[in-house]
C-alpha cells in the first residue's frame, strides 16, 4: 500500500511538472500581428513563365499559341474595379479565342485572412501570323491593367499648442517631422510635417503631407470611368486633362477630419507633391502637449503595362 502511495505521489508530481511545461509553451505562442501596410506594390502582373514562349514557330497561315497572365495583389487594399486589356500587333498576332481572363475583376489585398493577397491567372490563345516572304518577326503582346486602389498611412503625431515653450515642466512629446517608406500601395505618404499655427484664441494643427508615386505605373483619377477609359474597356468620354496623377486625399487627426487645401484632390507633378491639411476647428492654446494618431487615406486609380516580346519564326 505504501508502495502504491509512492507511485501515486510521483504521478501527481509528474503531472504538475508536465502542466507547468505546457503552461510555459502556451505563453510563448502568442499570435504575432503582421503589418500588411508596408511596401509599394499594388497589383503585380506577370506573364506566366513560358507562356507565351519566347519563340513561336509559324507554319503557313496561322499558328496558335498559348499565353497566360498572372495577377497578384501584393498591396493592402482589395481591388474592387480591376480591368485588364490585351494589346497585340494585329496583323501579326490575333486572338484566336475568347479571353477567359475576366476583363473586370476584383482581387483581395493582403490581410490576416489572406496574408499572400489575392491571385488570379488567365489564359488565352493567340495566332501568330507571318508575311508570306518573311522569315522572322519580333512582336509584342502586352497586358494593360487598370484598377482602383487606396493607401492608408497611420502615424502618431505630437500636438503641442505651446510652440514658443512658455509652459514650465517636461512635455510628453515634441513636434517632429516623420518620414515613411511604403504603406502597401504604389502611392505612398513619404513625409508628414507637423506645424502649429497660432490663431487668436486657439492653435491650428497643420500637416504638410508629402505624397509620391513609388510604383512602376501611372496614377489615374479614381473615377471608374477614367479607369475604364485608361484600359479601353469601353468607350467613355472622360476629361483627359483630369485623367492622370490625381489622388484624393482624406486625413483625420484622431476622430476629427482634417480640411485639406485647396481641396482634397491632389495633382501630382513629376510623380510627387504635397498637400496641406489642417484641423480648422483648432485646439485650446492652454492644452498640454499630447500624442494623437493621424490617418491619411489616399484614393486613386493606377495603371501599368506588362509586355513580352516574342519572335515569330518561319518553320
Amino acid at each position, binding site marked *: 500500500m505504501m508502495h502504491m502511495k509512492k507511485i501515486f505521489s510521483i504521478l501527481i508530481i509528474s503531472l504538475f511538472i508536465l502542466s507547468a511545461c505546457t503552461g510555459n509553451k502556451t505563453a510563448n505562442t502568442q499570435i504575432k500581428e503582421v503589418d500588411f501596410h508596408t511596401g509599394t506594390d499594388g497589383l503585380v502582373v506577370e506573364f506566366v513563365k513560358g507562356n507565351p514562349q519566347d519563340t513561336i514557330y509559324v507554319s503557313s497561315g496561322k499558328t496558335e499559341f498559348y499565353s497566360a497572365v498572372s495577377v497578384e495583389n501584393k498591396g493592402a487594399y482589395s481591388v474592387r474595379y480591376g480591368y485588364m*486589356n490585351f494589346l497585340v500587333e*494585329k496583323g501579326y498576332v490575333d486572338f484566336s479565342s475568347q479571353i477567359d481572363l475576366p476583363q473586370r475583376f476584383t482581387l483581395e489585398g493582403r490581410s490576416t485572412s489572406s496574408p499572400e493577397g489575392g491571385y488570379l491567372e488567365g489564359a488565352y490563345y493567340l495566332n501568330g501570323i507571318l508575311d508570306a*516572304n518573311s*522569315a522572322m518577326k519580333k512582336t509584342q503582346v502586352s497586358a494593360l491593367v487598370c484598377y482602383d486602389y487606396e493607401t492608408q498611412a497611420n502615424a502618431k503625431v505630437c500636438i503641442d499648442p505651446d510652440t514658443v515653450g512658455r509652459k514650465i515642466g517636461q512635455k510628453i512629446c515634441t513636434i517632429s517631422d516623420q518620414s515613411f517608406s511604403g504603406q502597401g500601395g504604389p502611392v505612398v505618404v513619404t513625409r508628414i510635417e507637423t506645424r502649429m499655427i497660432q490663431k487668436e484664441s486657439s492653435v491650428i494643427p497643420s500637416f504638410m503631407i508629402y505624397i509620391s508615386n513609388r510604383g512602376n505605373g501611372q496614377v489615374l483619377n479614381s473615377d471608374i470611368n477614367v479607369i475604364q*477609359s485608361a484600359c479601353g*474597356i469601353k468607350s467613355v468620354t472622360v476629361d*483627359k486633362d483630369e485623367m492622370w496623377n490625381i489622388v484624393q486625399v482624406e486625413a483625420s487627426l484622431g476622430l476629427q477630419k482634417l480640411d485639406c487645401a485647396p481641396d482634397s484632390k491632389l495633382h501630382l507633378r513629376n510623380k510627387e507633391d504635397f498637400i496641406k491639411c489642417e484641423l480648422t476647428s483648432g485646439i485650446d492654446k492652454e492644452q498640454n502637449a499630447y500624442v494623437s494618431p493621424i490617418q491619411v487615406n489616399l484614393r486613386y486609380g493606377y495603371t501599368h503595362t506588362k509586355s513580352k516580346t516574342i519572335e515569330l519564326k518561319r518553320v
Partner: protein
Amino acid sequence: MTDTQYGSVKLKNANLLFFGMAVLHVIVDGLIFGFNRKEMFGIFFWVYILLAFIIAIFFLNANSVGETMKHLAFFIGLSLVVIYLPVWKEDILSAFPSLPHSTYVLINAVFLLLGLWPFYIWKTNSLSGGMMTFANFYLIGWLVLVIFVMFMNSYEVFASTAENAPPPMDVGEVLTFIKTNVAKVFVAAGKAPAAIKTSVTQTYNKSTGQEYYKSEVEQNTQDTKIGVYLENMKAADPINYEDQKITFWVTVKAKAYNGASNENDIIPIDTLCTSDRTETSAREGTTNPTHFNVYSYDEQDVDCTFDVKDDPLNPKKAAYSLMPGDHTVSFAAKFNFTTKAYLKSYFADYTLLRSLNKENIDVFKQYNLEANPKAVYTNGPVDIGIETQSVIPVNTDSAPEENPRKNSVAFSLKNRQTGQLKKIYDLKLYVPKGITIIEESGCSKPAKKLAEDDGYSNIYSFPEIEYKTAVSADTPQSIMCYFDIDSDKTALLGNDPITTKYFKVEAKYVYELRRSTAVAVKPKMK
C-alpha cells in the same frame, strides 16, 4: 633692331603686351567683378586708359611716330572690341530672353576661353625671352584665377546686368560645360562637311522624289541570304583558240523565301552571256540552262558557250568562236523578285496624347512601346525604307478639328546590290484600315486603291511607276502620300487607348546581276 610686320621687335612686343593686358583686364573684370558695368565701369575704363598710357611709353622709343600711331590705333581698336564684348553680349542676349539655358552657358564658356587668346598670340609671334616669360606667367595667372574662382564657388562669373538677362553662371558650371562639350564641338566640326552634304543631298532628293527613308534588313535565321548571287565565274579551259568552242562556268546561288509557299515567291531566273570586246566583234553566247526556277534554295552551275560559227558582218572570215585578242565575257542572271517592307506605327486618341504630354508622361514607356521604330524590309537586292510619324494622333471627337493635321507616309526604293534594277512592275502600299490615301492629289505619284485587301489594310498601287528603270544605287525612288483618318475610328482604335498598326510596301521587280571575266583568245593553230 629688326623690322617686323609691326615695325620693330620692341614695338611688336609693346603692341602685343598692350593687347594682352586689355584682355586680362576683361577677364579680371568678368571673373572677379562680374562685368558690373553699373558701378564699376568708370573705374575699369580709367584703368584701361592708364594701361594705354603706360604701353604708349614703349612706343615713344619706336622708329617713327606715324608707324607707332598706326599700330597703336589698330590695337586700341581691337582692345576696345574686347573690353566692350560683355556689354554687347548683354544687349544681344537681352533681346532674346527665350534662348535656352545652354546657350548662355556656351557664351559664357567662350568668354572664359577668351583669356587664352593673348597667350596664343604671344606664343605664335616668336616673342623675346622676357615677353615669353611674361606669357607663361600670364597663362599661370589665368589658370589660378579660374581655379580660384571655381573653388570659391560663391563668385558669379559674367554676371549680366541686363534686366531680362538670364541668371549668371558660376565658373564650375561653365568649366563643366567646356569639358563636356569641347570634344563634341570638335567631333561635330569634323562631321560638318558630311552633314552639310547630306542635308543638301536630302533637300535635293526630296524635291526630285529621290529621298531615301531609313530601314533595316529583316533578320533571317539562315546564313544564306535571300536573293540571287553569282559566284566562281571562270573559263573551262585555260587556253582558248578562235576556232574552238569556248566555254565558261558560273555558279548561280539563289534562295527564295522559305519554301516559296506562295507561287509569287518562286524565283524565275533567265541566264544570258555576251562577249563585248568591240561592237563589231560582240557575240552572244549560249547558256545552259537558259531558264530555271528556284523554289527554296538552289545552287546551279550554268555554262556559257561561244560556238564556232560564221560572222555575218565579216563573211570572208572563217568561222570562229571569239575573235583573237582579249575579251570581257559577261554573264547575266535576270530574275523577278519581290521585296516587302513594313513599318510599325502607333495610333492614339489625340486628347489622350495631349494629356500624357501635359503630364510629362512618355507614351512609349507608359505602354511599353518601341520608340521611333524603323522600317524593316525583307532580304534581297532592293532596300525599301518607310517613314511616318511614330505616334499618329486620332481625333475621336465628333466635331471636326479646326486645324486638321496632315499626316503622311513616305517610302523609298534603293538598289542595295551591284546589279541593275531593270524595272518595277508592281508596287503596292498597304495602309491600316481606317485611313485613306488621297488618291488623286495626295501622293507624289498617282495612287489607285485596289479592290483587294488582306483583312488589315487598304491597298494602293502606283501604276505610273510600273515599267520604269530609274532606280539606281545612288538615286532612290521615293513616293510620299498624304492620308486622311476615316471618320469611323473603330477600325483604327476600337476602344483601345493606343494601337499598333503597320504600313507596308510590296515591290515586284526585275533585277539583273552581272559577272564578268577576262579571257584571252589565241588565233587558230596553223
